[in-house]
């Protein structure tokens, strides 16, 4: 019984530790909130502007769990569909979002470039100069 309680406690604790995924922009950008459809279109390069500034979506590496969650829950495509989607974009001159290696790199880039939008684990959001425009509940 004691072991079971311990496991339940650990499960609850691990659930609590998983923060939401937050989409961040520079606080200099005037937009306060984006809808899930807007975020989806920005990351599929089908919406080019955030509040009259050219949008610059940033991805984490393909194997990153946050990216996998964003792709399935926001973009609504599995990996194979997404590759076919980017085939079409590539042959029409549109590049997929820039990939940065870590969430720290995403924060630094977004803070520096107006129009840049990236996603990170909420627990890493401590910096000044960033603003949450969409939250993906976990």
């Amino acid at each position, binding site marked *: 019984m004691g072991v079971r309680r311990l496991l339940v406690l650990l499960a609850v604790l691990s659930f609590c530790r998983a923060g939401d995924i937050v989409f961040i922009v520079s606080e200099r950008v005037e937009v306060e909130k984006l809808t899930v459809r807007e975020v989806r279109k920005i990351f599929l390069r089908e919406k*080019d*502007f955030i509040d009259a500034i050219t949008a610059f979506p940033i991805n984490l590496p393909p194997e990153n769990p946050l990216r996998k969650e964003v792709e399935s829950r926001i973009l609504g495509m599995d990996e194979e569909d997404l*590759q076919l989607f*980017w*085939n079409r974009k590539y042959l029409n001159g549109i590049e997929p979002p820039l990939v940065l290696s870590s969430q720290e790199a995403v924060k630094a880039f977004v803070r520096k470039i107006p129009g840049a939008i990236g996603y990170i684990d909420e627990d890493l959001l401590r910096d000044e100069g960033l603003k949450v425009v969409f939250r993906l509940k976990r």
Partner: protein
Amino acid sequence: MKMLVWLFLAVLALFSLPSFPHEHVEYRPGRGFRIHSLKMTVGGYSTFFYKSRRDYEEYKLEEISLLLYGDPLSRVRYFLELELHDVYRKVNGRDRTTRLVDIERLYVDYEFSEALKLRVGRFITPLGIWNPIHIDVLKWTVSDPAVVAFFFPNFVTGVQLFGSPTLETDYALFFQNNRGISERYNNLLSRRSAGGEIRREIGDNLKVAVNGGWFDLEGHGEISFAGANALFTAPGTEISGEMMYALERRDTGEEGRRFSYYLQGVRRILPGNYAILRYCYYRETAEDRRNRALTIGWNFRPYYFLSLKAEYQFRERGRLNTFFASVSGMF
């Protein structure tokens, strides 16, 4: 032969790009070379095509295309596609190789806002579902439905205005009033045209659109057309349909009507393996022609940049039943 030497040199130059010491050049299979400092991508695609019916056999290295595009400024994009056609072609055993080069696409975009973007140059006519994805490696089948062949020119050399006035709505308007670039490689010769399409998203999975326009048939008459299309997508599934109606007025005073539609379903049956079923109808009153075709196809994508297709097309007249196959890849 001279063309092949140039092409070889171009490909060699492409693959030597990573050796440039001061450039940050990245190559990904099927996505070309990205030269980050120039914000430019260089890549391309190629297709091997095979077609066979009772009294006809054709195989060819259909095209080798080179793409060059970039976004040097935040609101400016450019795009160039050079294509070498019929690199090697045999029809019923006879050599039909041409190796002609043409400019498939050449345009510059400027983005004023989300709702207003401007494109100038030679571009794919922004109508329908099938026409904008005319490249073999992107298509589900080797053969094309009639809606893209007889109702409007596949390419326009002129001006396009496009954009998204709302999150769910896209539009495109195009105009041409001049000679076209690479007129030889267009399905219909026209130097004056105008048209457009408006597309609406309904929910996350469905897009519907209506379109219409007009073009002259350089010295033969003119055609007015209208159409509608719908596309449903879900993971591993795509259902699409298009219909077009056209009224043709010949300079001789004759009038004719054309009507066509297709319905197509695509389903992923195993990873990388897609089954395709398409029904296509075409009717033309001037020549009193009617065609119906049922296409059953298979599209195998072992890698995202490679597509192997095979399909059998049942035609109304059995002697026209046709087998198609192709291998196409992006580099």
